[in-house]
């Protein structure tokens, strides 16, 4: 069964800065700063191509990154739920 489908604001709604261990995201609509680690920036970038569920995001990431999409779906679904809780993605 397909999981929930998510969408994110356009990439221009976020400022991104990489630090040594973590990445910073400034979310312009809310004015909030988020400290995140991989694969969160990559998930947000993948959503730039349009709304998607975890399986579809895994396939998009596999096309551009060197990783096995099988098994990544659960981890991506968990990150999406966290991102929804902090307001960086929402249900499409």
């Amino acid at each position, binding site marked *: 069964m397909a999981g929930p489908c998510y969408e994110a604001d356009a990439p221009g709604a976020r400022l991104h*800065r990489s630090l040594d261990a*973590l990445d*910073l995201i*400034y979310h312009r609509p809310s004015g909030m*700063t988020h400290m995140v680690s991989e694969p969160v920036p990559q998930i947000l970038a993948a959503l730039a191509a349009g709304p998607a569920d975890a399986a579809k995001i895994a396939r998009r990431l596999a096309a551009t990154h060197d990783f096995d999409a099988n098994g990544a779906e659960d981890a991506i679904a968990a990150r999406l739920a966290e991102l929804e809780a902090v307001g960086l993605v929402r249900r499409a």
Partner: protein
Amino acid sequence: MRHRFDLRIGPVGFRIGSAWRAPIAALGQLYRGYPKPVDGIADFTVRLEPETRWRRFVRPSVAIRGDFTLPDAAPLALAHGLLAAEMGMNLQMALGQRRYLILHASAVERDGRALLMTGHSGAGKSTLAAILGERGWRFMGDEFALLDPATGLLHAFPRLVSLKNQAIAAMEAEVAPDRFGPRLSGTPKGDIRHLRPNDAAIAAMSAPARPALILFPRFGFESAERPMGESEVFVRLTQASTNYVALGEPGFDALGHLVKSVPARAIDYPDTGSAVTMAERLWREAGL
């Protein structure tokens, strides 16, 4: 207000009004020679008022009021009026400053470059800046450092140094008596004595400096140091800023740039002399 004193500290103008003469006289004495607000327009107003009308005369107690107030702040005894004025100025800055990113940090400058020191209350940042300010550095401030998001430069805020408890004796050994205010005993923060920055710090208060090194000192431990990663420094500095969230995107840009471009070290020290030696050595090792 019956009594009034206007001054500028770094780039920030204040107008301080008081129902009593004594706190204004003490401010006038300790802040003698400070400039007035630019064009006579103060950024912030602080008012020292009786808690109720009759308390101006009977067991006078000072309520701190102004553009920004804390509703639950307890009034202070009139004998602590100078402290009330300083707390009032700090409060306006912490709650109302929107032009600069405020870092709860002390700062000193040498050759146009600034050494920032931040840490929890009691970490020694105030005393350390005051001592360095007497030993070849320009004292920029002991409480707030003002980061300009437009330029990345640090502006000085050389208010009176608020010395607490053991730090009072340490500075009394270093500085001539005429730069000290009265000893305020039994305040909510313990014993406090205000110290006037030296003439060089006051004369140069309008000159900003480029941030060059950030130290996170911790007093009361064996001498030790460790480099700090960018992520840790970013988190610590957002915690040390009173207006990071209010500033929005310019604050994010300014702090991100500071963290990426300026090295940071955590230092533990057992006494002020060790801290001064470590600060000088780390400054040299950073190629400054």
